[in-house]
């Protein structure tokens, strides 16, 4: 399978602190990849760098979005703004949930459709036929995403009134609405009970299988990571310390040492 994301020598400094240290990571089409590591390893920082929220100090981020015809173009995306990265087809969720709390669940997802639609101020005021049709398509597409994720019964509720697990799902729905080829999930199972985590496991697999979207996830729940991922990258102190299949990672002494004190329950 072809590579869709390629990160070479990515480095991020915060003043004196080197949060990412010459990181190399690649993701292939149709994969579910996990990024794990102890607290403060730099996982979220990695997400922030490749989605344009932080400007990395060094290194290359190269995407090759899969095209239907099989013609894919390599493109360096360092320095693009977050919205441009999303437009290119990489969407993300946040570790500390960042929904639009006073908007409805449906509207949250509709925001995800923003970069795939066109209407401007004039369209909003005059509501010509094309604009009305586009608005209707935004509503319909968003509702379809909610149904897929299993949040349809909350459509008109305010996002801040959702239960915690549903809020995490809504973040995924919102990201899906942007039509990404790669979706980045930052600790999607955090705060979920075992039942919800199990459903999440199925959902993520379904997203990959049905939509053909590749997935990169940061997760501390080892059971989920081991059951979901095709490959795993392990980070510690900003460096990649290991990579491989779940089987290889489970038995890797370096990984066990990095997690010393933290238990891998799998």
């Amino acid at each position, binding site marked *: 399978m072809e590579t869709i994301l390629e990160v070479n020598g990515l480095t991020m400094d*915060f*003043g004196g602190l080197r949060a990412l240290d010459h990181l190399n990571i690649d993701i292939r089409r149709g994969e579910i990849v996990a990024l794990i590591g102890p607290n403060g390893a730099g996982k*979220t920082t990695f997400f*922030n760098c490749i989605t344009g*929220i*932080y400007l990395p100090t060094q290194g290359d981020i190269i995407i090759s979005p899969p095209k239907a015809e099989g013609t894919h173009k390599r493109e360096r995306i360092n320095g693009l703004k977050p919205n441009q990265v999303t437009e290119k087809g990489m969407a993300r969720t*946040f570790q500390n949930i960042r929904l639009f709390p006073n908007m409805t669940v449906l509207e949250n997802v509709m925001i995800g459709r923003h970069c795939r639609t066109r209407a401007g101020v004039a369209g909003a005021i005059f509501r010509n036929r094309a604009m009305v049709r586009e608005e209707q398509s935004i509503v319909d597409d968003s509702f379809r995403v909610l149904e897929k994720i299993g949040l349809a019964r909350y459509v008109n509720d305010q996002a801040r009134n959702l239960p915690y697990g549903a809020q995490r799902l809504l973040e995924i729905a919102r990201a899906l609405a942007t039509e990404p080829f790669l979706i980045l999930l930052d600790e999607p199972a955090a705060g979920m009970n075992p039942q919800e985590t199990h459903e999440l496991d199925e959902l993520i697999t379904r997203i990959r299988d049905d939509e053909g979207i590749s997935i990169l996830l940061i997760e501390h729940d080892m059971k989920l990571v081991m059951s979901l991922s095709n490959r795993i990258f392990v980070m510690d102190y900003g460096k990649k310390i290991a990579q491989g299949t779940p089987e290889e990672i489970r038995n890797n002494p370096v990984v066990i040492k990095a997690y010393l004190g933290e238990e891998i329950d799998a």
Partner: protein
Amino acid sequence: MEYFFELFLGGLTRGSIYALIALGYTMVYGIIELINFAHGEIYMIGAFTALIVASVLTVMGLNEFAILVLASIAAAVYSAAYGYTVEKIAYKPLRHAPRLSPLISAIGMSIFLQNYVLLAQTSDFLPFPSLIPDFEFWEPYSHLLRSTQLVILVTTTVIMVLLTLLIKYTKIGKAMRATAQDRSMAMLVGVNVNQVISMTFVIGSCLAAVGGVLIASHIGQINFFIGFIAGIKAFTAAVLGGVGSIPGAVLGSLILGLTESFATGYVSSDYEDVFAFALLVLILIFRPAGLLGRSTMQKV
């Protein structure tokens, strides 16, 4: 050359007054990330309190020195009390509100206090008694630096040194620095954050009151509106130096004072306030972290 020195000393005097007010902005911003819009009004209330107390004491026939001391103390006490109360009413209930809420509340408080003084006192300019006596020094150059200016410069320097010592070495100073760095962490290690915030307002307000008394006796008149312009200029100075940084506030104030002094002296006095506003706009656009501030990335 003499004119240059006159402007230079005038600028330093101006700048040191701005510094006294700017410190209040910068300390509050450092701790709760709020532009305390009502801070200018605290300074104005300090000046009014001094005026009122001084007038009453003059009628009672006290001697000049006693009046100066008592009026200054009263100004500091009342400014501190107002600063403390404003924080409790308008900001404390909004600790966890969206960022703009306390700012709007602060603007409301500023307008409220202005009109409170306007209604309870007067909208006219009131002549401010010359609390600081004129004395002879530095002949034959005394026309370059009036005695009130000398007092202002000396007082400000002393206060700056005291404040630096307070923040460096006392318990409350350490607690303030800890809270400024990471509020929730400070709370975890047992700092009483509410108390620290209150103390910050009290200290900042005292400094503003001193500034109010000094500038009012230098200029010789006050009204309810002096806090607005002074507040904005002091805030400009704080931002210029890097808001949140105490040496930055002092540096920024001196630069602003000197700029204004030279600009009005050599260019034109018509646009006196435009210089400050233009400087404010330019810094915020091109170097929002200020001269001594470090630009940081928002943690996501």
